[in-house]
């Protein structure tokens, strides 16, 4: 059986996929292929603050050059970073509000904030660029 685990080592959080082999039935896996990637691939995420570690899809369609687009129409509540500030992947950069709920925006990669295009109070459409990480 395959398990998804979240493992914390020395404060760093890893998302790990594990296959349990001692399950009784033998699946007859083929011998390892030279050059194939190993099954367990640790992915390091930014250490969580108060909020749980965000589940981000690795397959978000390309939004050119580190642009962070609004995932929904709403009002900007906070911008948590300044232009020039260094940010880590997974770090919270903004909060939007829609339908009386906060939606948190996280940095998709590590870098520096190159531009901030909105400010608290602005109303934005879905897909509008909020800020960019270089």
């Amino acid at each position, binding site marked *: *059986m*395959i*398990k998804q685990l979240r493992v914390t080592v020395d404060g760093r959080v890893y998302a790990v996929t594990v*296959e349990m082999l001692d399950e009784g*039935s*033998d*699946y*007859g*896996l*083929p011998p390892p*292929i*030279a*050059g*194939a*990637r190993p*099954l367990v*691939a640790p992915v390091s995420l930014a250490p969580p603050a108060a909020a*749980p570690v*965000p*589940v981000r*899809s*690795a*397959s*978000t*369609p390309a939004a050119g050059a580190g642009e962070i687009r609004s*995932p*929904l*129409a709403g009002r900007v509540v906070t911008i948590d970073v300044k232009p020039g500030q260094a940010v880590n992947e997974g770090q919270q950069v903004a909060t939007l*509000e*829609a*339908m*009386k*709920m*906060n*939606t*948190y925006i996280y940095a998709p990669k590590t870098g520096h904030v190159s531009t901030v295009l909105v400010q608290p109070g602005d109303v934005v459409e*879905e897909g509008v660029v909020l800020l960019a990480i270089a």
Partner: protein
Amino acid sequence: MPISKALLNALEQKRRIAYAAGGEEKITERRRKSLLTARERLTALFQENTFMEWGLHAQHDCHRFGMESRPMPGDGVITGVGYVDGRPVAAFSQDFTVGGGALGRIHAKKICDLMDYAQKAGIPLIGINDSGGARIQEGDDSLSGYGQVFFRNVELSGLVPQISIIAGPCAGGAAYSPALTDFIIMTQGHASMFICGPEVIKAATGQSTTMEEVGSAATHAAVSGTVHFVAEDDTQALQITRKLLSFLPSNNVVDPPHRPTPVVDMSPDLALNQIVPEDPKTPFAVHDVIARLVDEGDFLEVQRDFARNLVVGFGRVQGVVAGFVANNPAHKAGALDIDSSDKGARFIRFCNVFNIPIVTLVDVPGFLPGIAQERGGIIRHGAKMLFAYAASTVPKLTVILRKAYGGAYLAMCSRDMGADIVYAWPTAEIAVMGAEGAVKILFKREISAAGDPAAREQELAAEYREKFASPYEAAGKAMIADVIEPAQTRGVLAMALRNTLSKRETRPPKKHGNIPL
């Protein structure tokens, strides 16, 4: 008289040629790309030594365009039955090293014969797709071959689970067979699936695009919503297949493989009491809730990257298999929209045909407002959720976690949509709409007549929230079964699932309902 050695040798020789498939060179090429061969994929799927192959000696009989001098071992596809977790499963695996895995008449016949058997035997069908498409030399026979496969995909639909793996190219008409099956698992990198590729699009419309944009696993998982699981490579794709099968019955007349624990553990899970934030505007992670409800936190999420405002997937609650449908307040405030309605409805209908109980976790503020939603048809898409739930006769258990407003509350399997038991947490707000919106309408005159309208509105909203945005109005009218502490949820669900497993609900016979599509 012992059987003639010459006959046995001849058989051995024929087998060796068939197993060699497209030859050493082509097989080495695949290894270089980290791809398994067609046969290795089946070995990775099935328990050791359980695979019975049919059609090893099948040959095409095409005499046109030089085909007579091109033998194709097995006509480019391996078909047969093996065992997964002790249960028989039918599978076909297209062999790209043999004529590009292209589909001709005999290739299609082998698959169709396998599908007919799967239907009669009542066993799941797994299709490993890796093919250049139709064998052009066979012309109409190839096209008809696809037609026959599609027809059987539809015949089998709802009789046995059908899972497709896209492990290589799957282009044009060939993409419709997986599209007709229940679940699609696609590998990253090598696999591609499209009707018209970038070259055809460019030639026909002038638009420039890339395979990554229109045919990749990433695009189909996150944007088009066609693919249900993305695998890193062939091996993981087959692991996902086995994992998925472990929740499913072999066919529609048996139950899923429930393994109910001998004792139902009703002890409270105090961690669940900590999960809902104080601030009603702060979303909580619904994945964390589900992880605490399912055994060993083992939840197989389906379509994780698509319509992330709704989470669907399989898990067990103290051994009993259930399909979960849950709003995800971290995305789009957990509101229902076009994509999430499609995702939810299809999952609900799959659970219904295969006798899988459905657990619905509700925290929904409504349907997502917007011009794109309205013009995009949120009316007819949202209706799919209502239709799917109302038409389902499997056990349906609903737990209202926080907000449950308006039509979206109905669409999340309310009592009236046929939920067998509806529970609510003390944090539940079951209402026609949120307090602010409601008081604007109900107390319009009073607010505009007040000295400080804004303050009066706030006051009235607070009163309304206190009185109506709670589970006790609905509980008072016996519209929900009970208000429970979050910590009780796992035990309560485990018990309720067991009780409702014997559910039997009859509906007036008809060919089928007309679900809005």
